[in-house]
């Protein structure tokens, strides 16, 4: 059975959202998604999946706070403690069972509510072996960036090129919080943070919410929808301890991609796929992820970004949305945003950043520092 995306709803991504609380943010994105799909959630939706982590929310048992703002009262709901793309995988499987025809997936960030965001991220470090050392959690990213750059002989200039590209792409995305005309020199000269990572290599936190409506092919037909198909989806975690995981390649992304490509019958990702939205919450991550997804050879992503291949008008556009560097880090909503962006491109609804003639796109997520977890979705345009 095929599963497609029939509704896309996103709020703007913003550094803060003083007029809304987090429930109202979800209400807005859900209202937009249901209007886009032309459905009534009280009648047409069989299952609702939210993606959240209590520590980011600032209160316990998030799933108890869910149903009303999604139109899900007295309907099946569940919460995935993970990135939105992992929630998308759950919805895909629920529909594949044949028990669910229409499912809704939600993920959000109200990062501006978190006063001690560094401390919340630090809580994800192992409390016996890592956290007592007193390092900022992004030290883990600094170490990985060092291992990646050396292991692939990638120039730090390539990181600056990623920053410049994605911040500029953000200028053409009305939803992006951090679009800016940054050039590579500015990125190279920004303050050192976690060498080789500099200030501009790190995405800034943003608020926002993304809701997608999924349907089986049968339900899509009944609802007169023109879906973007989920051709394949996969997810994986590398070793849960920092010490035993791969420090150079994003193994989680490779395994997740293998699974998604197998389902989607993608044999040569570099030629079968037209564009990608990958996690770039640190600039090196974009390059590392492209290589792990088989979209660039090992060590080539850096030279290709410097050559302009990944520009919006390049040979293989990457993060035309602006990515997290341009849009902001929306935490657990990051992967779902990228899936929504790929779907908009495939529908021809991406506005001034619309790519010509794209048929197949890939969205990839990572669960941020210090995780080694990711998911990949291959999406394709109709029929």
């Amino acid at each position: 059975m095929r599963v497609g995306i029939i509704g896309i709803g996103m709020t703007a991504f913003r550094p803060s959202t003083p007029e809304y609380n987090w429930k109202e943010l979800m209400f807005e994105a859900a209202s937009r998604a249901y209007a886009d799909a032309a459905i009534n959630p009280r009648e047409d939706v069989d299952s609702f999946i939210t993606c959240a982590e209590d520590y980011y929310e600032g209160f316990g048992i998030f799933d108890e706070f869910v149903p009303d703002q999604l139109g899900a009262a007295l309907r099946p709901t569940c919460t995935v403690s993970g990135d939105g793309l992992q929630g998308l995988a759950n919805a895909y499987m629920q529909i594949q069972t044949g028990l669910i025809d229409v499912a809704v997936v939600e993920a959000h960030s109200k990062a501006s509510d978190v006063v001690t965001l560094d401390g919340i991220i630090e809580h994800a470090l192992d409390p016996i072996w890592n956290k007592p050392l007193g390092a900022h959690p992004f030290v883990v990213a600094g170490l990985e960036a060092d291992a990646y750059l050396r292991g692939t002989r990638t120039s730090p200039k390539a990181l600056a090129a990623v920053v410049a590209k994605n911040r500029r792409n953000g200028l053409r995305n009305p939803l992006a919080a951090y679009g800016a005309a940054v050039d590579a020199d500015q990125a190279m000269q920004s303050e050192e943070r976690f060498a080789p990572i500099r200030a501009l290599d790190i995405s800034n936190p943003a608020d926002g919410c993304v809701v997608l409506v999924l349907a089986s092919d049968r339900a899509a037909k009944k609802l007169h929808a023109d879906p973007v198909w989920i051709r394949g989806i996969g997810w994986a975690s590398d070793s849960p301890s920092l010490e035993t995981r791969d420090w150079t390649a994003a193994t989680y992304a490779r395994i997740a991609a293998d699974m998604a490509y197998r389902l989607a019958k993608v044999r040569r990702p570099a030629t079968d796929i037209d564009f990608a939205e990958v996690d770039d919450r640190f600039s090196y991550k974009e390059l590392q992820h492209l290589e792990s997804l088989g979209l660039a050879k090992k060590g080539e992503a850096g030279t290709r970004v410097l050559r302009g291949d990944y520009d919006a008008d390049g040979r293989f556009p990457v993060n035309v949305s602006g990515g997290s560097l341009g849009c902001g880090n929306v935490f657990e909503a990051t992967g779902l945003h990228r899936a929504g962006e790929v779907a908009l491109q495939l529908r021809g609804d991406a506005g001034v950043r619309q790519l010509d003639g794209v048929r197949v796109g890939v969205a990839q997520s990572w669960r941020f520092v210090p995780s080694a977890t990711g998911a990949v979705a291959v999406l394709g345009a109709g029929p």
Partner: protein
Amino acid sequence: MTFLDRTTDARKFRHWEGDVEADYIYTSGVAGERFFVALRDEGRMLASRCTACKLDYLPPRMFCEDCFAELTEYVDVPRTGRVAAVTVAHVDRTGAKLSHPQVWAFVTFEGIRGGLLHRLLVAPKQARAGLSVQARLKSRDGRTGTIVDIEGFEPVRSRF
């Protein structure tokens, strides 16, 4: 530069201030206890061995992540390790700027699956991957049986 300098500080807007009180003691566990007692009392570092997979795990753990065997055998970690990755942090754990940057490393050991994340006790300019290093321990009196009994890793003096 307003684009690069936007506020994410919601305290400037209407809100209710709250906090999540959350204090814990984290139990070291069986394998952790073995490691930390040996570190405190004898200045040794131990890895746990999976005889089935022929793997020695550092940090030691009670179970093999590959085959699920219960691990009961411990072996010494070689004294000298190698810096596998290095970074220089310019901010502290809360994000506040440091007057003296900190050097951090991931140190691996020959024949050991895993390694240790810790301070690298060199000047930022001397920080590089590939260095041969040894653990510098606190004095016996100062050791309490935790990961910070190790002050960090320092370069092994070259032998030529």
